[in-house]
């Protein structure tokens, strides 16, 4: 039995059950009696918000890959590294472990996350009732793996801190790092604004 069928909401913070319709307050909103948080039966405008943030992240992902992550300045001149050129460099020099860590964290994870969220939005929009459990697992996966894309941003920041020899040899952050950071933040926000209960709604409505 779904809580929404009984006109009950679930507090997003403390998971207390809240009765709807509320006696007063904003339209469609109740307040949790235990912690005072605003409660909605479903996250408001979940699909639109997630889709908007996803599109933004796709746009940010292009300069994140094309612009250099960092500029390495040595006696020989300045070298610029993008994400992909870094991965290729590691693969060519035989550091397969580090190469694959960077490839997974900076290329595979963001792309996979965007694809999963697009797929979930698509299935909810078209009221698909199949495989709700598997789709929920996919959603939980996006929540778990999302933050690991930050690895590359941290690598850049640690390299900047360590390779700092007063003008002669220096590493500076490139434009790609900022856009990549934006990709991570925006995809995390997109995953947060998606309401996983929507995945189950169609299946449960058909059962009832």
């Amino acid at each position, binding site marked *: *039995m779904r809580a929404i069928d009984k006109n009950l909401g679930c507090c997003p913070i*403390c998971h207390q059950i809240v009765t709807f319709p509320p006696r007063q307050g904003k339209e469609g909103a109740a307040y949790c009696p235990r912690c005072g948080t605003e409660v909605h039966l479903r996250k408001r405008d979940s699909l639109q918000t997630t889709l908007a943030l996803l599109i933004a992240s796709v746009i940010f992902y292009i300069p994140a890959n094309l612009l250099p992550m960092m500029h390495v300045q040595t006696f020989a001149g300045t070298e610029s590294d993008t994400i992909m050129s870094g991965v290729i460099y590691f693969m060519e020099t035989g550091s397969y472990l580090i190469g694959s860590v960077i490839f997974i964290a900076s290329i595979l994870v963001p792309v996979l996350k965007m694809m999963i969220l697009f797929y979930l939005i698509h299935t909810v929009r078209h009221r698909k009732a199949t495989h709700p459990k598997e789709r*929920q697992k996919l959603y939980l996966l996006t929540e778990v793996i999302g933050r690991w894309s930050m690895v590359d941003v941290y690598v850049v920041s640690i390299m900047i801190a360590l390779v700092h020899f007063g003008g002669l040899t220096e590493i500076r952050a490139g434009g790609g790092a900022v856009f990549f950071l934006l990709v991570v933040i925006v995809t995390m926000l997109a995953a947060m604004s998606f309401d*996983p209960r929507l995945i189950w709604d169609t299946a449960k409505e058909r059962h009832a």
Partner: protein
Amino acid sequence: MESRIICCHECDELCKIPYPLRIGRYKCPNCGHTLFRHYPGMVEKLYAIHIAALILFLVTNWYPFLTFEVLGNSSEANFTTAVRYLYEEHEYLLTVAVLMTTLVIPFSRIVLFLMLTGPLYHGRMPRYAPHLLKIMENITPWGMLDVFLVGALVSIVKLVKMGTIIPGISLWAFAVLILLLAYGQSIADPHPIWELIEKAQKEGRVKDYAKAVA
């Protein structure tokens, strides 16, 4: 037998939980997601873990993190050096992001845990407990110390070819800190604290939001 209804926040299923609770993990019968965990002794363990974590966090920030030597030149980096250089290069977005995710939020989380579990351990109700739990719930996804550790390891491997890397005391303290915080995260569950808050609200010891709304 007494029971209670809990709502699964992943699939919106109403789940019946029999009381008294047994030790272990409670799962949603519909989707299998963990509803909450019931482990007596959680508060004591979390208190101990986060006292240790606070000390390790201070050690991590005080001592040198890594030293890099190349051709007789050496540059030493603290945990916060990156933030300073990013700021000097006017990369404000990166500065704020690194500062928040590796310093401000992890430190606030340790302090919040201490503010909650400390009074509970000594048998008192923490002040502002609902607010503290609410802040905790909102900032948790943005603390990324564990990701930073992987970033540090990747950059060590990157730099080893260019020169000599000397790990500092801070790096070891940091690695232990990550393990401690991961263990704390695996046993932490706000559920029993919310139940205590509800009880205290009924006895009028904590601000009652039901009255404030009505």
